[in-house]
Structure formats: C-alpha cells, structure tokens
C-alpha cells in the first residue's frame, strides 16, 4: 500500500487517491491530428523504474498531484502540484 505525501493534506493511504495515469504525456494541440492524439491516449512507456504519474486526491483535498514513483520499489522520490515539474536532477536520472 502506497503512503502518498499530499502537499496539502500530509501523508495519506493510497485508497484515498485515484490513479490518473502517466503525467509525462501532454495533450496535443487541437490541430495536431489523429496520430498525435492516438499517441496521447494510448501509447505509454511502461518503464521499469522512475515514472511520473498523476494521482487525484479524490478522498481528500480533491487536488491533482504529480508523483515521481519507482515502479519496482514504489519509492516516491518527489511529489508536486499539477503545475510543478520534477527537479531536473531526477528527470535526468529517470532517462
């Protein structure tokens, strides 16, 4: 069971959250075409390692959080609000 440190509410159990998928993809512009939207909706990296993902604190503050989580160890390296980006150091380590 993940314990997610919500920046607004503090550390909370995973059951209070809804997983909302990969936070590294961004919605294409309206004229980007079908291929770009197919990639946005369906294509995912499924990494073994660090993964930037959306979690909605639906049973708490209802804010959307961004988590950098390790898909094997479940370690959470960074938590931010929807607008924030993970620190570049971690970003490099992910790649």
């Amino acid at each position, binding site marked *: 069971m993940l314990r997610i440190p919500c920046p607004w509410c503090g550390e909370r159990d995973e059951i209070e959250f809804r997983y909302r998928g990969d936070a590294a993809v961004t919605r294409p512009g309206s004229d*980007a075409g079908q291929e770009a939207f197919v990639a946005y909706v369906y294509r995912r990296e499924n990494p073994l390692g660090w993964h930037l993902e959306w979690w909605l604190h*639906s049973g708490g503050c209802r804010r959307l959080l961004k988590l950098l989580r390790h898909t094997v160890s479940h370690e959470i390296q960074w938590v931010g609000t929807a607008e924030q980006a993970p620190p570049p150091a971690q970003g490099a380590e992910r790649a």
Partner: protein
Amino acid sequence: MSGPSRIARGLLTDPAKAVSFRFDGRTLQGLAGDTLASALLANGRRLLGRSFKYHRRRGIVTADKGEPCALVDVIGEAGREPNQPATAVLLSEGLHAVSQNRWPTLALDLLAVNDWLGRFLPAGFYYKTFMAPGWAWERVYEPLIRRAAGLGRLEGRLGDHAAPAEIVHDHADVLVVGAGSAGLTAALLLGSAGLRVLLAEQDIVLGGGTLLDARWTSWRADACARLASLPNVRCLPATTVLGAYGHGTFGALETLTAQERARFRGLRERLRVLRARRVLLACGAPERLIAFPGNDVPGVMLAGAAHAYLRRYGVAVGRRPAFFVNNDEGYAGALALAAAGIRAAAIIDARPDACAAARAREAGLEVLCDASVSGVLGRRSVRGVRVMLPDGVSRSIPADCLAVSGGHSPATALACQLGAPLRWQEAIAAFTADLPAAAGRSAGAARGIFGAAAAARDAEHAARALAAELARPAPEGAAWLPWPADPAATPVRALWEVPGRGKAFVDLQNDVTTEDVRLACREGYEHVEHMKRFTTCGMATDQGRSGGLVASAVLAAARGVPLSQVGQSRPRPFAEPVPFAALAGGEVGSHYKPRRRLPINDWHERAGATFVSTGLWLRPLVYSAESGWEPVLAEARAVRRAVGVTDVSTLGKIDVQGPDAARFLDFVYANSFSTLAVGRARYGIMLREDGMLFDDGTTARLGPEHFLLTTTTANSAAVLEHLEFHLQAVRPQLDVVLTDVCDQWAQFAVAGPRAREVVACLAGDLDLSNHAFPFMAAAEASLAGIPGRLFRISFSGELAYELAVPARGATAVWEAILAAGGPHGIRPYGLDALNTLRIEKGHVTTAELNGNTTAADLGCAHLLKKSGDFIGRTLAARPGLLGTDRLQLVGVRPADRSRRLRNGTQLVTSAARSASLGYVTSCTPSVELEGWVGLALLAGGRQRIGSRLLGVSPVHGETTELEIVSPHMLDPENARVRA
C-alpha cells in the same frame, strides 16, 4: 497429570485444571494451556490425519502454526472450520475436533491405495492423464480428484461466522516482528528511547526461543515486566504479520483466545493494518527437515518441536526418541529430555564432531557422528531408525520417535516482500535477506545470528541504529538484565537429502517428494518457480516452511548447480491462512457498502415505496408492494394523461463557477455552452478523449460565470473526477472552481400535461407562460416559500419542470407539490415508471451510454460542435467510429403486439439465426403505444428502420418478430415538452 506421556510440569499448562475434549468421537483429557496437539501427544495419540495425495498416515511435526501435517476440522458453534493446525488450536472444554482426508476412518483409509499407486501418480499427473475427452474434466475427473485429494470440509453457517471479526488500524514508529530475545531487547531499547513500538509475536506468549531455555526465565520475566511498564510499547501476542505491503504498511492477523472471545462478544479474529516508519524483523529462523525415506511416518518430527512439547506442556513425545541432526541446536531437546528422565536412543549427527556432541556424551547419551538416517522402521508409527555409519555399515536402532533438525532457515519472507535480495550464507547453509535501510533492519536469527544472547546483542545494535535514524537516540547502557551466555557451538553442516528406498518428502502437506522435484527438472521445469508450480511444493498452508529450502537443494543437485544459483521461490502474503471473515471484518451484510438515502427517504418509506439499490443509492422503484407491471403503468399513465412527480435527487450535480466557466464547459462538452444565455439550460454530451460517449445531462446557466451541471446518476463520481483532472492537468490556466453539490440539493421532476398548473401554485408570482418561461428555461425561484431553482427540462417527454431545493427543506416542498397536484390527480412515480416514459421517448441511460457507443451511434452527432477544441473531438473522427455498420440506436416493437420484449434479446435475420446483429438494451410495456416498446443497439440500425428482424432469447427459448422503428416512438416532433 492427564495422559501417560505427561512427564513434567509445562510452562503453559496448569496441572490443576483438567479439560476434556473430543477427537474423532473419543473423549480425552488434557490440561488448561494445552494445544490440541500437546493434549493428543500427552494421551499417546500420534496418528492425526491422512496425507493430501497418497493418504499416508501423518502425525505431528511441529509445535507451532507452521504445521504441515496435523490439520484437523474443528467443530464449534460457528460451524465446521477446516484445516486448523492442531499445534495452534488451544484446548478448551468440550472442544470437538476430527481428523481430515480419510475414508471411512483414520485407522482404515481405503484411499491409501494411492500410496501403492504412487509410481503412477507423479507430480503433474493430472495435467497429463485427464486430458480427454474435454467434457470429462468438469463432470468426472475433477469431482473424483477433489474427493480423493483436498483436506478438510467447509460447512457451517456463514452468517454466524462472518460477523465476529474486525479490522483495526495501528500506527507506530517501529514495528518489531518477533518477541524472542532479539525482539524483546529491541522493543525495550526503542521503547526506552521514547519511540512508539508495536511488538507482534505469533506465539500466544512472548519469549520465542528463550521459552525453551530455563536459564533465560528470569531475564524474560524481567523484560516482559519492563515492556508492560512502558506506555509507548504495545505487545501483540498471537499476532502473525501476514505480509509487508510497502511504505511501512503491514497486515497482521490476531487470533483471540477463548477468554478474549467472551470479552469481545464472540470476536474471533482481528485483522490489523499496521503502519510504521521502520520495521525491525526479529522473526527468527524456522527449523527445517531432512529428506530421507519415511521422513513422514507418524513420530518423525522436528527436534525443536520435541523440545517445545517438553518445556511448554511437560509432554514427552516418546519414551525412547532418536535424534537426527546436523547442528548443535538440535541437541537441546535431547538434553532436556534426558534431564527429565527420558534417554534418547541415539543422537545421529551428520557432522564428524561437535561441541554439543561432547555435552551429550557427558549427559550419558550415545552420539553417532558422521552418520545419517537412511530409513524409518514402521509404517503406522516409528519403531526404529536405520542408521548409515561412517564405515558404510548400516545399523538399526529401536526408537519410538525421531526428532530431526536439518538446520535453521532465517525467516526472510517479509524482508523479500520489502525488496531485499536473497543472499546465500555458506556458514549457516541458508539464505538471508538484507533489508533496505530505509525500510528497517533484520536482527538475530532472522539474519542468521544464532544463539539467544548473540541474537539479542545483534538486535541491540540494530535498534540503536534505528533510534538514531528516527532522531530518538537510546539511553546508554542496558535496560535489561545481563543475557545468559550462549553455549559454544559447532556450525551447521548442510545436509538436505539422504538417499534410500522409499518416498522422501520435501513438502509433507502437498505430498511432494524428492523424486517429484527431480521429475520437474527432467521435464524442463528447472527454475525454482516453475518447479514449485509443477510439483505444488510450498503451495500448502505451511508455505513450505520446513521443506522449501530442501526442495531447492534437491533441485540444485538435479541441475548440477550450486544452491545459491537456484534460490528460493518468492514468498508472498499471506504468511498463514486467513479466514475470509477476517478480511471482511465488519463489512458484512448491511455494512458491506455505504448506503445513500434520498433527502426525503422517510417520505418514500411512509408512502410504501418498493426500493431498489442503484449503485450506492436506494431509490423508490414503484409506490406499491405489488409485483407486476400494473402499478408501474398506472404511475406512468398519470404522467402522460395528467401529472406525476418523481425524485431525481440522485442525479450528479456539479456547481461550476469562475470567469472561465463557459470556456471550460466548451472544452469538456462536445456541444457549446458559451453561447447559452443566462437563465437557460441546454442538453449536453460529454465524450472521452478516445471519442466515445461518456455522459450526458442538462446544464443550466445561472449567471454569466455560474453554471450548474447535471450528470447521470451512475457516472456522477466519474464525471467529477474527469472534470477535475482536465481542469487541473489539461486546462490549468482556466480560472474555474468545481464543487460537488449533489448531496446539498434535492430535485423533483413534475411532469405531465397539468404540470404548469401544479408548479404555478408553488412558484409564487413567477410567470410560467411559454413566452416568459419556455422549454429549457432556468431561474432562481421561491418554491413553496423555500429559495430554490426551477428548470423547465424534461426526461419523460412531457411538459415538465424540475424543482431544486436545499436538501433540508425538501420534504415540505415535495408535500406542497402533492397538495397542489391533488386536484389534478397527481401521483408520485418511481424508477420503473421513469424508465417506461424515457424508453417510449427514446431517451438513453447507461444501458445505451455503455462506453462503447459514440454520439453518432446514438443519433446525436449533430450536437458535436464544428469549431473549437473539445475532449474527444479528434479521435471521434476516426474512420472506425464513423462507420454506418456500427451498432446504432433504434426502437423495437414486437410485430405481434401481444408479445413481450426482453432485455438482452439478440437481433438476427431468419436466414442467419446465430449471427447477432445487435441486442435490446431497454424495454417496457408502453402506456401510449400498443404493447411493448424497446430500445436496441443494431448494426447499421438507422438504415434498417422500417424493416423486420427476429428477436431471439435462447435463455427463455423465445423467438419474436420485431419491427425496427425510430427510437423516438412517442411525439417525435417534441411538441409536448413545448406545450
């Protein structure tokens, strides 16, 4: 003393309190404090069950919950509980237990023929043997195998057993698992540092291995007393940690004693969810067996168990036991028995010499070094052992019991679940697992440090490190009495298998032999996980605790690689069987899920409504206790002919406010809302980003920057989440606030040709004329004196108004509606009538908005706006979603108006009756049209309107000729809603 084998006073038993119990119909006597196993041993009973596959006689192997063989059914007031380890069932007055897996009786089991047929029943035999014919598996083979194999029988009254369990949550700084010398020391140190400590011990008493050593008695008593005086330390005996779930979360099962059950109203188990910042694993190292022919004969047991029965219960497991060991700890039981007057027949040690051998010889015991047991004499019970001596000579030694110790394997399961890799330790011939420091520490025997004092010293170091990490450095000096010194010990020497004739078991519960492991290897199942699944080794309730590593070693030898390369199969939760009742806790019966009641639920109840559960909601289905369609149709008829009122408070309601509210709605809805005037409502459809229809509903504009959005009942939570996600992740620049106001507002639909007269009575001086308040108008209004909102929207297809009022004052408004409608013949109508009305009109619900349909499929493609971005716009235009042969919404009516329709009826042509073209999604008897009407999803449906198809329902054995019609079966011009 109760029983011929009770030779001493046990630590846990009270010789003054006799307890009578029944086993297989015989009444026997034990003592208070006994387990079922110790009481049976005290009575000289040894045969406790038959094995899983070969139906071989089996006795007691261990003295703890890891018992592989002595499983019994316990019959109590809560029914029959199968597969209870006799080694963990506490004796209580009148306890009734029966042996398992024998037919007709334990002594004479006819299915023991399987043992003789053993060479035809190797591992995996039923995958190969029972292949054909295919139908026979379900009807013949499986029932037969299930009767022959399997363990106890499950029966009893679930209702009685389901309630008495609970789930509790505990938090701590450190969870200490295991309360032996290491766990007690760690808990004392962490506790005196002021940390919050949970100490979980699966045994019913604290002490672990120190319970077997009289020299530790005063140390243990002192430690327990000190722990009890620390308010920040909680001891949880009889609590097994079942698994580690990451981020400091653990599951544990506490089994309550009979006294506690009485105190907590029959509560049997407590499932504990433990959350701790760090864990200290001091869970010891279970003893393992050695594979030699006949290592399952009743009377063969682990040496530690023989020791435990003497110390804990004063029971001698035999009059003349033999010991077969490869380590010094295995001698302890023999020495203790000798001190109590039971001389071992011999101690057979696989090593050339040992410190413990010298001590045993001093005590007058015969020790045969560099020797091994190559067979057991006796089938029903041990009569002697065949010993292979170093010079190659074989010698038979009479004995009535054989205590075996093949070494100790550190309990690594929890550490592995926390991500620790296994590491082979040649010095102890076992694997250890080093816990990641962020999770905690292992200490003592759990990481291969044997000897009670050495383990305690190790735990002290680990606990000091944890305390420092948690910024609560422990005080200098010991918070406990000095530890008794460990005796000098010679290291273990690996010994896994002794070759010989006959079956040698590595998994006693699942009847897996060394030959089965080798067969798995020959058949290509060389990986330890494949071998496990092919042979079922380690998949029984004891999880291969005593034989798992032995099986790995046999596999390593068969593959010709070192054991370190083979490893052990991955341990997964649960560590011991968990009753479903414990997992359910209190969430049973009416507490299974939350129940949402409508704001005026009490009125509906008083009116005699029949309720239906939709999602979490309880909704009035029909205001009648009678079954059948007539009460439903009477309600629907009132709406079509006069007026009715229904409670639509379950609709999702989301308040959308902010300068960018209109722009946000333009993005999330496929149609446009920025063009909506204040004081007007509009029907909207929402797509998913993949282009499929997601939800629909009416949204009203209450102010320039204020909208009220409604969703379907089923999707209300999902739509809110969808909106929140897109607002925060995709359109964060928009200044919009979303508020779920579903529970704050009650909403009632007044529908029917007389609706205007009824609402006019309530709406004060609001002008309801078509000119002032047309179809799709919305306004703040005082309704029966209560400030609320009035919408002119319709789901029924009739002239209709929806009245929204704060949930608190809702009953008064509902009653005012009924009073005003009285002269017009108003009736309340339920969900069934609501459905009848919407089906006649061709309005869709979740039956049609099923996630596989597009706007075009449901005939609302014209609503998609032509310009501007919105969710789903691009992918809705994929060619595959535009095909005209897709399932499209149509109406269906039986050609013979006297026939009925059924949901799920498949639509076919008479030429191809098994090729489904679609299916009926919703249907109802009609009040305005003759006979039944329905909605269906039909391939290329719109082009088939006007044609006929067959509706087949194989489960009902029905075939009906159907007319395919427009889904708008009633008032297609929409004149009534504008009346």
